[in-house]
């Protein structure tokens, strides 16, 4: 789960990182008041769950309250990569003498958290990693011992010359790791980590992604979720235990298993059409899940046909067939449905579908081609 910068800043501050104060504003007036309260120059930053806010014009400097109001007026309502800006963060503008990057991710290869730092701060770190990987310094963290002092010091020396500054940075890295661990993050990033003109080390941006799998043990973070950053259908899907991502095509798909769902989307493309979505009904199917999946897909006006691709394992084909039958009764299904079922309880499923005159096949290629043909002729 992505959280906003203002939320991440609070988490970092609570773990002892030096983060300047900030205010959150939802209107130009609030931004003006925030700037007045903070005093001096401020920076006004769009709060949206995408990177590259600066490049998109979502970050502006303001000399005082009046300019902050103006900046917020320009940023609020702005569309950044498809997301509407609903909140801005107002923070003191700092005089930057030095910029660096510090971030922790879980590294698939070493199977450990890895702390990365780079003297190339304030820029897209993935670009640095691609173009000048030698500028990134890393340590693997053994979660049994945490980030050891000498490891943190080594990264401090990679960024700074002054021993006092190195020690200060090392303490900051250890606090960052403790925050990362305490909140079950999959990413915790300070970019940029700055030395101010006054010589203070400060984290002036904060980015945190939380591990969805660990949210069950962090009920305190449920309130950090921003439903406006997700499509309503995706919110509904998550609440119903389905995994759904809306795409731009016309062929709706309902599949069991993420890999098969992706392969189904790819096959739609292979045969010359575009999938309307990714949707995985998950392992243990019950008929209700199928009804919910159908409701979500039908809410997308682009959908011209729905295809089911079910390979029964844990999922029982008859459960899915029963779900399709109840969906047809409960919902206004105004697009054609094509079905592929094979595996566990396939025979029972075919009998159920036959009773409502729905044919089914056991070939994935066949069902995809059929769905595309129907979607082309379809109108809603």
């Amino acid at each position, binding site marked *: 789960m992505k959280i906003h910068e203002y939320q991440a800043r609070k988490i970092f501050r609570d773990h002892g990182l030096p983060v300047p104060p900030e205010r959150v504003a939802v209107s130009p007036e609030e931004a003006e008041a925030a700037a007045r309260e903070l005093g001096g120059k401020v920076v006004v930053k769009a709060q949206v769950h995408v990177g590259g806010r600066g490049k998109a014009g979502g970050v502006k400097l303001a000399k005082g309250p009046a300019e902050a109001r103006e900046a917020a007026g320009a940023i609020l309502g702005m569309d950044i990569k498809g997301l509407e800006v609903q909140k801005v963060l107002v923070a003191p503008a700092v005089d930057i003498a030095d910029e660096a990057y510090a971030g922790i991710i*879980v590294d*698939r*290869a070493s*199977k*450990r*958290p890895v702390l990365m730092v780079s003297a190339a701060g304030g820029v897209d770190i*993935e670009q640095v*990693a*691609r173009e000048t990987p030698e500028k990134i310094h890393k340590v693997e963290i*053994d*979660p*049994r011992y945490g980030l050891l002092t000498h490891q943190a010091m080594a990264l401090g020396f990679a960024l700074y010359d002054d021993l006092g500054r190195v020690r200060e940075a090392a303490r900051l890295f250890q606090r960052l790791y403790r925050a990362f*661990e305490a909140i*079950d993050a*999959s990413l915790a990033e300070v970019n940029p980590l700055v030395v101010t003109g006054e010589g203070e080390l400060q984290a002036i941006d904060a980015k945190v992604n939380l*591990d*969805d*799998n*660990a949210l*069950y*043990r962090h009920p305190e973070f449920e309130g950090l979720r921003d439903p406006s950053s997700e499509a309503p259908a995706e919110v509904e899907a998550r609440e119903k235990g389905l*995994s759904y*991502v809306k*795409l731009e095509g016309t062929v709706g798909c309902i*599949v*069991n*298993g*993420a*890999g*098969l*769902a*992706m*392969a189904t*989307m*790819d*096959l*739609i*493309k*292979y045969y010359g059409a*575009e*999938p309307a979505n*990714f949707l*995985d009904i998950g*392992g*243990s199917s019950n008929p209700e899940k199928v009804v919910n999946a159908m409701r979500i897909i039908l809410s997308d006006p682009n959908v011209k046909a729905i295809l089911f691709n079910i*390979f*029964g*394992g*844990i*999922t029982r084909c008859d459960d899915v067939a029963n779900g399709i039958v109840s969906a047809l009764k409960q919902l206004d299904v105004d697009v054609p449905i094509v079905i592929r079922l*094979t*595996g*566990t309880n396939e025979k029972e499923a075919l009998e159920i579908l036959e009773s409502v005159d729905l044919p089914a096949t056991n070939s*994935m*290629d066949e069902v995809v081609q059929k769905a595309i043909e129907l979607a082309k002729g379809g109108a809603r």
Partner: protein
Amino acid sequence: MSVLIDRSSRLLVQGITGRDGSFHARQMIDYGTQVVGGVVPGKGGQTFEGQVPIFDTVAEAVDETGADASVIYVPPAFAADAIYEAADAGVRLIVAITEGIPVLDMTRVMPFVKDRGARLLGPNCPGLISPGKSKVGILPGQICEPGPVGVVSRSGTLTYEVIHHLTGAGIGQSTCVGIGGDPIIGTSFIDCLSLFEADSETRAVVMIGEIGGTDEQEAAAFVEREMGKPVVGFIAGQTAPPGRRMGHAGAIISGSEGTAKEKMEAFRQHGIAVARRPADIVDLVRKALG
């Protein structure tokens, strides 16, 4: 021969009385797997369906039954501890079916398992099957046939799809392994490829990857460097948009890393025949078998 499991494997089922655990314990027994015990804290002394003894702890179960493998069906909040317990009891092969284990739990589990000399398969995986011999996990046995092709995959049902095509074309499998869809997994593509390379029954391998990470790229380099047997590849997620998680926690394209295109190119570059759709795997495997 086959890899990781065969007729002699003696299996424990952790969570044998749960909904998934009991259903699949029954399926595994019917398939011929030697299910020698179940583990459910508080249910020690009972039996599963009157034939499989249940123990309170894995250590007790190993002592009593000589089990060398365990499969885990417990809920995510308890799954990490179930893995620790199995490794501590000396189980050699631990198969974690559970989906949704927090990733930081896995960073702690991995060194623990390694220190105790155990192998972990998964988590969030369908398990594995050596057709006609033994199956551990949730793969449907009826779609498999014994034969010369090793299958290794990050997916569940997509693996079934591929096996279904192979079996339908009269091509059997030595062992099919689902390594799991999480970012941190115990057994990698490379681990399985080297097992297949060493297995006398396996003559060709099908590797099924998906978007996210660089495991497939590294595996491709390994194939060229270390393998004599032919490998056929498929990557799911050619149409997946960047930055969006496609179901699996591991299936997300970040930055320019982990796209299907990049992985398919790495496959081709290292001499792996790439199928554009699952159905095409059959012809490529036929060619590979000669």
